């Protein structure tokens, strides 16, 4: 949050004087926000320690008096300046000398504090300058046993353990954001592993986790919380790397999908980078990037967003989907100090706008990003330990898979031994961590002149980082050094590999033929195909 602040701190125990004197330094300071934090001990005085020294009748009138006192403080403040006032309610103690029969009294001690709190709440319901801060709930959330530290209280008259000051400040910031009009308006959501568990392009409509199962509920309920924000006027949008048809099928047809197309003000589902998509969404929805919040499970996407569009608030979603709802409900980004009928319908309005607009495209310098990403590709020597993983990748990879040929461990082992074939496996790492063995190519070299790429696949985690080009460059290099003349590649369309369709074409291959549902491409090995210059690679022999 970029906000330049100035503080005025009242003198010790001078709050009443400063509030009631219209010429006080407090008002000379001309604040935008005044926080009145009254604590129970100060307000009740000796009644705090000896609550039952007085009769029920006296307690009733005492309670009345306290309410009038506190109300006067707040009202006097609003008369004397334009500042918004945050008025703490009172922390209800956890101890009563009456113990078990505390709540059997005509008007109990703890009850009297509840009455003060509920009366204050009611008194200022319609006041748009005074906001009651539920300090009692704040203490409960942390635990009243923790918020009160006797030693600090005796040493410095502190009623809140210093450890929890930052938590209290977070609460205040929600108000400050609202006053400074810095509240967020729009949540932009990733899909795979964010709105549902799993990857739709890999797991399919039946395979993703969403619904009333232990694994599906975190996602379903996360969506419900998002929907409740939509109902209070927060705009929702989608920013996802996926085949639009696959992802839209979930949104339209999955029985437990809570958020439907008509809840989203903008939908960007494609293979563009998320930064470009974010800009497109801002333009499409017509709101500032600084009022957008980005929620994505993938750390790389988040870091990319932080780096390229620092105005966007990026939520660091935890790895465990069980904590998604907690993360969302702990965000203090959407609070505003008033909600109008229009606000409540805003999410809806923006969602409807969508249908009237066309998608905008904007490109950013991806090369620059990749350069900073420090991608390293290690070409592994094939050994028995990695064969199961190689086989698994051929079995499971759908999206960037040129031929979708499935191989068992036995077949891979045979191919590794066969001199007519070369099996290549790559490990990919970047500055965010190691992705492990995530790419495989199988090259057939029966015909010494014309080599053929039988399989070429990458796990979806690493697509779009020039790893594909690196793998291909390596194959071309090996083919050249073995004096082959041509390299052929095939593309067999499947339901899920559309994204790889143009790969060979983009890499300078010429179309040879289309037969039996197979596109055959050919690369003339007289041509150059350099390794992408910002990717480091290592060959393990």
């Amino acid at each position, binding site marked *: 949050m970029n906000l330049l602040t100035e503080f005025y701190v009242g003198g010790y125990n001078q709050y009443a004087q400063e509030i009631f004197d219209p010429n006080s330094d407090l008002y000379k300071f001309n604040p935008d926000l005044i926080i009145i934090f009254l604590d129970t001990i100060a307000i009740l005085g000796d009644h705090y320690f000896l609550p039952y020294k007085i009769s029920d009748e006296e307690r009733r009138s005492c309670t009345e008096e306290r309410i009038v006192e506190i109300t006067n403080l707040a009202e006097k403040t609003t008369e004397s300046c334009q500042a918004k006032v945050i008025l703490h309610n009172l922390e209800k103690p956890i101890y009563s000398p009456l113990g078990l029969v505390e709540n059997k009294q005509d008007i109990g001690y703890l009850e009297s504090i509840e009455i003060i709190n509920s009366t204050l709440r009611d008194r200022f319901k319609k006041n748009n300058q005074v906001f009651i801060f539920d300090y009692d709930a704040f203490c409960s959330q942390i635990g009243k046993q923790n918020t009160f530290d006797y*030693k*600090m209280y*005796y*040493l*410095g008259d*502190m009623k809140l*353990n*210093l*450890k929890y000051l930052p938590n209290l400040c977070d609460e205040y910031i929600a108000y400050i954001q609202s006053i400074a009009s810095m509240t967020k308006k729009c949540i932009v959501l990733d899909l795979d592993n964010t709105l549902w568990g799993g990857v739709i392009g890999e797991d399919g409509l039946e395979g993703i986790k969403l619904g009333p199962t232990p694994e599906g509920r975190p996602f379903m309920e996360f969506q419900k919380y998002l929907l409740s924000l939509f109902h209070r006027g927060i705009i929702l949008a989608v920013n996802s790397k996926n085949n639009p048809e696959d992802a839209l099928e979930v949104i339209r047809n999955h029985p437990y999908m809570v958020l439907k197309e008509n809840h989203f003000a903008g939908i960007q589902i494609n293979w563009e980078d998320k930064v470009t998509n974010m800009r497109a969404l801002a333009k499409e929805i017509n709101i500032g990037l600084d009022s957008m919040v980005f929620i994505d499970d993938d750390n790389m996407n988040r870091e990319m967003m932080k780096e390229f569009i620092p105005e966007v608030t990026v939520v660091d979603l935890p790895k465990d989907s069980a904590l998604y709802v907690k993360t969302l409900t702990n965000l203090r980004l959407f609070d505003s100090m008033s909600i109008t009928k229009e606000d409540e319908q805003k999410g809806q309005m923006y969602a409807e706008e969508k249908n009237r607009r066309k998608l905008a495209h904007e490109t950013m310098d991806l090369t620059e990003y990749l350069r900073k990403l420090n991608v390293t590709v290690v070409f592994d020597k094939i050994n028995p330990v990695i064969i199961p993983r190689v086989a698994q990748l051929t079995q499971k990879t759908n999206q960037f898979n040129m031929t979708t040929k499935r191989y068992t461990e036995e077949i891979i082992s045979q191919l590794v031994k066969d001199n007519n074939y070369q099996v290549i496996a790559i490990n990919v790492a970047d500055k965010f961590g190691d992705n492990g063995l995530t790419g495989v190519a199988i090259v057939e070299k029966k015909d010494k002149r014309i080599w053929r790429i039988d399989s070429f696949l990458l796990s979806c985690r690493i697509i779009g980082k020039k790893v594909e080009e690196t793998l291909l460059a390596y194959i071309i290099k090996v083919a050249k050094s073995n004096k082959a003349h041509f390299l052929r590649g095939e593309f067999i369309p499947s339901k899920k590999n559309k994204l790889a369709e143009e790969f060979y074409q983009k890499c300078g291959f010429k179309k040879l033929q289309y037969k039996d549902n197979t596109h055959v491409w050919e690369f003339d090995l007289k041509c150059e195909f350099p390794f992408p210059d910002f990717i480091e690679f290592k060959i393990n022999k």
Partner: protein
Amino acid sequence: MKKTKNLEKLFNLISRILEIDTSIINSKTSPDNTETWDSYNGLMMVSELESVFNVHFTMDEVVGVRNVGDIIKALKKHGVDL
């Protein structure tokens, strides 16, 4: 004087709260010769020391501290290797 890891931690903590350079901190550093060592920052140090070194001081210990040397003594008493 060669600083142990814990001593370095302690000096960094004091330097951060009192906003003074670690190089001018020594066992004689006290509220009398350090303008920023007021009662609030004093309590802030207590709170931070307790959480950083995982100790719990008694009231008497806190009140008995007159300078950094006393803090070191109190920490040693609680088994912190300094």
